């Protein structure tokens, strides 16, 4: 069966070399599709959460992601914190009802991850926000105007190095241990 497949492919190509480029395209596309390079599932959240509304209402990023200033991890708001305001604000809305259900059931909300760095990369939000003097936008884009948050940068090593070499005050990432341990 495979032999026949190969034979077909062979004939397909033999008839005209131009088709080989076509084949190449197909292979690459397939590889792309299969590989994990598609942005980590960020689009489908358990609750249709709208960052834009929150930010426009004047809620700070750091109010909900309240570990960012004191920890490497940004932190996710506890369901209780959400309810803290939303038992009053917009209590009627369907999304809020969902939230309330989670709270009532005592279940955590399984938020889907949006930005992804590998586990062998040790990035500290604390340092970048305080000592680094950056703000959320620099890496996460203008979340304040996103209804659904999408990653704005492929957070690869080159991306880090670029910023650190361009940003004049950022320390040069000479020794690997700054990020890799």
């Amino acid at each position, binding site marked *: 069966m495979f032999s026949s497949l190969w034979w077909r492919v062979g004939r397909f*190509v*033999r008839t005209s*070399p*131009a088709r*080989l*480029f076509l*084949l*190449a395209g197909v*292979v*690459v596309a397939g*590889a*792309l599709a299969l*590989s*994990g*390079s598609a942005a980590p599932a960020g689009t489908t959240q358990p609750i249709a959460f709208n960052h834009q509304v929150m930010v426009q*209402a*004047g*809620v*700070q990023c*750091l*109010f909900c992601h*309240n570990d960012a*200033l*004191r*920890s*490497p*991890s940004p*932190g*996710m*708001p*506890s369901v*209780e*914190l959400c*309810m*803290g*305001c939303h038992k*009053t*604000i917009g209590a009627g809305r369907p999304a809020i009802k969902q939230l309330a259900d989670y709270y009532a059931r005592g279940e*955590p909300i*399984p938020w889907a991850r949006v930005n992804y760095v*590998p*586990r*062998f990369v040790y990035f500290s939000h604390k340092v970048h926000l305080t000592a680094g003097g950056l703000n959320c936008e620099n890496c996460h884009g203008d979340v304040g105007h996103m209804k659904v948050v999408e990653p704005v940068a*492929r957070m*690869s090593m080159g991306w880090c190095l670029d910023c650190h070499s361009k940003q004049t005050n950022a320390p040069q990432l*000479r020794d*690997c241990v700054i990020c890799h341990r």
Partner: protein
Amino acid sequence: MADTQLLGLFNEAASTAEVIERLRRAGLGDEQVSVISSVPYRSRMLRRPEITSRISAVAGIGALVGVVIGLAITFGTYLLNPLPVGGQPQFPIPPTLIVVFEVTMLGMMWAAFGAFLFINRMPVFGQPPFSEDVVDGSIGVLVQAEESRSAGIERLLREAGASAVERFDSSARANNRTWIKVMGGTGAAVTLALVLVLLLAYDVIKIPFPTNMADTVSIAHLQGPRLAAPAEAVPVQGPVFIAGQPAVPQVASSPSSIQRGQVLFGINCLMCHGEKGQGNGRLATYFNPKPADLTGEKVRAFADSDIFLVISLGSGQMPSLAENLSPTSRWDVINYVRSLQK
């Protein structure tokens, strides 16, 4: 009008040389005549002009290119990632020499090969004007001439003792179809490979290998299930409250504390209580009764420990901010609020 090619076959070098001489006299220059043999004959044997090959020159150029590439690889690396290793200098000469040497030789020989193909107009994938007799030892004289003169030339060749004369029309030489097939195929394959490599190189294609350490078994921050220490446990920095005792300030009011407090206030309180804490934040509209005026008499009357209690546990519509503010930063905020009240 099309040219024809006449191939006369001769048995030994001497008579070949003679024929060539005759042809020359007949006005067919060396560029129109070429000798075909399965064994290299020296030009002098055939009274042919010395051929000078330019391949050596090209090889030399290739070597130079090699030097450049070698230097680019090595010094490029030294400059691009100046990672110190083993106390060696940033620009180590001996390793550079080794690498450059190899790449130089590479460039030289590849260039020579390329030049060889180019000068001989290779590759041609087809049956060139050739005769099996050449394999069997005859020497072929291939004459390129206009159709009109071909008859005369053939006569001349036969008179000179050619064992046989064969005609080819020049179009037979190159078989374009195969050429396109093969070269196109190779080209496509190479490009495909290149594209794939670059896609991989720039992580457009990321293959999640089983053992790359991007995901490990250790528990990451924010990874579920989230566990906490038991409520009764007391960490080394001490309990937040002790039942039946007012909370004691852990941070004395100081400019730095107030500054920290201001930032934290801006994050956690401002949206309801407003810039100056008068309870006129942007979210205030949603609440009824309105958020407290922190500069008002009521709050002024509060003891610090009471405010601490409110921040930690929340009161009324105000949620608990225990999660947002660690105990010490709660005191920072309190100090800031107090400074607002002044």
